[in-house]
């Protein structure tokens, strides 16, 4: 059995720093927001649950998380009830797995809910726990937890090789903040000027605070369903999952084949484009993993939106903004929405779904094909989903 698979709704908590909520509070709120987006769906209709979270054991002292969430949301899964972990790409990995389970007929209606509680009452803990995110024994042990040092060096090398400028990095941040300015769920909702971005405190030169996504608490939830159920459950336009890819060619930094061309991203995106039967120029709107401004610039290139080395010009010329070739991170992306690891891929999927349904807050007119991209680890894995109004 191979069926068409749809993303039919979604919701999220407010995302922010040190939210006054526990992880389980947030999963309940995100789940409720998702159900409210699909009035025809009740928690009793869900036959599978996949929870995406990365730091749950470390921060919340809770493993075996999926049944905890099922119990709180009143879901009694019959076909799958498990957690997925792939750090920054946990959410999109969970959507890919839900897609596979629904497509193959193992489940009909799966809730994918993900998020992260990163802040504890002790501010040092999250920075310390980040030392478990790359290869702990060989990379992180050098103090490589939060990744600004790596992306600082990637930025410098991209500047040396291709002439990318600090102003072009800042332009990514300015676009992001503008897109998030009317996103009530975003961690940062204030537009900034180029001068303000360039004057932001230095984290690891050339990266400034405004070049880096913040540390975030938050959760998001979505529903992945077979087309037959989707038609019954919602009156809104259907959005299909058309193609996926997930690739890695290295984990440890010493095995990275190229710091400024991300081979695994090219592999994953080509897989997804081929499965969907489309080419990069067919993408109308994209949510890419802008953990840093340099990331978004390299992603334009390696996703095939522009030639290698021209990512800086791509943002400078407005080609990734509304009215350009392919508006990128239309809800503010990681830079402004924030980045609770397990929630990010789900937030991206929800934004693309809304863009393709035509009910996004900042709408790309006539968008019919969209893409999400996650990077995870120390530029280790790339995860792609392609969504479409048509299958």
């Amino acid at each position: 059995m191979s069926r068409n698979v749809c993303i039919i709704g979604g919701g999220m908590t407010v995302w922010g720093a040190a939210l006054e909520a526990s992880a389980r509070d947030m999963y309940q709120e995100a789940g409720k927001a998702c159900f409210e987006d699909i009035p025809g769906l009740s928690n009793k209709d869900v036959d599978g649950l996949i929870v995406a979270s990365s730091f749950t054991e470390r921060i919340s002292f809770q493993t075996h998380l999926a049944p905890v969430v099922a119990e709180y949301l009143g879901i009694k899964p019959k076909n799958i009830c498990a957690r997925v972990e792939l750090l920054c790409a946990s959410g999109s990995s969970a959507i890919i797995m839900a897609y596979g389970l629904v497509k193959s007929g193992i489940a009909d209606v799966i809730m994918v809910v993900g998020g992260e509680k990163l802040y504890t009452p002790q501010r040092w803990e999250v920075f310390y726990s980040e030392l478990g995110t790359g290869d702990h024994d060989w990379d992180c042990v050098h103090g490589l937890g939060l990744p600004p040092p790596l992306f600082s060096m990637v930025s410098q090398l991209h500047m040396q090789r291709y002439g990318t400028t600090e102003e072009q990095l800042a332009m990514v941040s300015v676009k992001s903040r503008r897109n998030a300015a009317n996103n009530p769920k975003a961690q940062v909702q204030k537009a900034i000027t180029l001068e303000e971005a360039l004057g932001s405190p230095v984290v690891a030169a050339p990266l400034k605070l405004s070049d880096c996504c913040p540390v975030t608490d938050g959760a998001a939830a979505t529903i992945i369903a077979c087309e037959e159920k989707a038609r019954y459950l919602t009156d809104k336009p259907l959005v299909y999952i058309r193609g996926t890819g997930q690739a890695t060619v290295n984990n440890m930094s010493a095995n990275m084949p190229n710091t400024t061309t991300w081979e695994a991203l090219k592999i994953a995106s080509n897989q997804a484009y081929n499965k969907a039967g489309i080419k990069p120029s067919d993408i109308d709107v994209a949510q890419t993993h802008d953990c840093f401004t340099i990331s978004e610039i390299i992603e334009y290139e390696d996703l095939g939106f522009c030639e290698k080395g021209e990512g800086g010009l791509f943002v400078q010329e407005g080609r990734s903004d509304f009215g350009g070739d392919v508006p990128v991170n239309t809800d503010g992306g990681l830079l402004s929405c924030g980045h609770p690891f397990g929630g990010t891929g789900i937030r991206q999927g929800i934004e693309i779904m809304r863009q393709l349904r035509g009910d996004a807050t900042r709408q790309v007119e006539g968008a019919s094909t969209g893409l999400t991209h996650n990077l995870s680890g120390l530029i280790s894995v790339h995860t792609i989903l392609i969504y479409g109004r048509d299958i």
Partner: protein
Amino acid sequence: MRGISILDGKYAVSMDMYPLQDKKFNKIYKFYDHLKAGRFTTTQCKDCGLRSFPPRVICPECLSDNLEWVDLPTEGTIIVFSEELLGVPLGFDPPLIHAFIDLGGEMVFLSRMVNCQAGDLKKGDKVKISVFPIESVFADGRRGEVLEQERVFFGFEKVK
């Protein structure tokens, strides 16, 4: 009081930043034995010849377990470096300095730079490995005794 009373001064290994290095806890302990002697080593497959890093027990190319220890260069040159000022993890002081180092064409290694200040480094600088002691791990012995396992770790430093 501050602290977690039920832990009563116990050593929480799950909160330790450094890897367990003793033979009791891993099969690549010779890397750390070599490091104590100033050698930077890894494993190479005696069947297919692949040299891989990090050191391991199975060749990732041909899956052979017939591996041997080989020496890596302990000197190299800086390709690019980073000075991190904000968000430095506990256990490190800002600026926390990292570099991509060309180890004589053998591999590109991302390391912490030690014994240097902000502004000390430039592209092309010669660097060498620097081995330093870190805190011991205290392990429970079978008869209730406490076993101290001494450890070292490494970074790279500028050749003066």
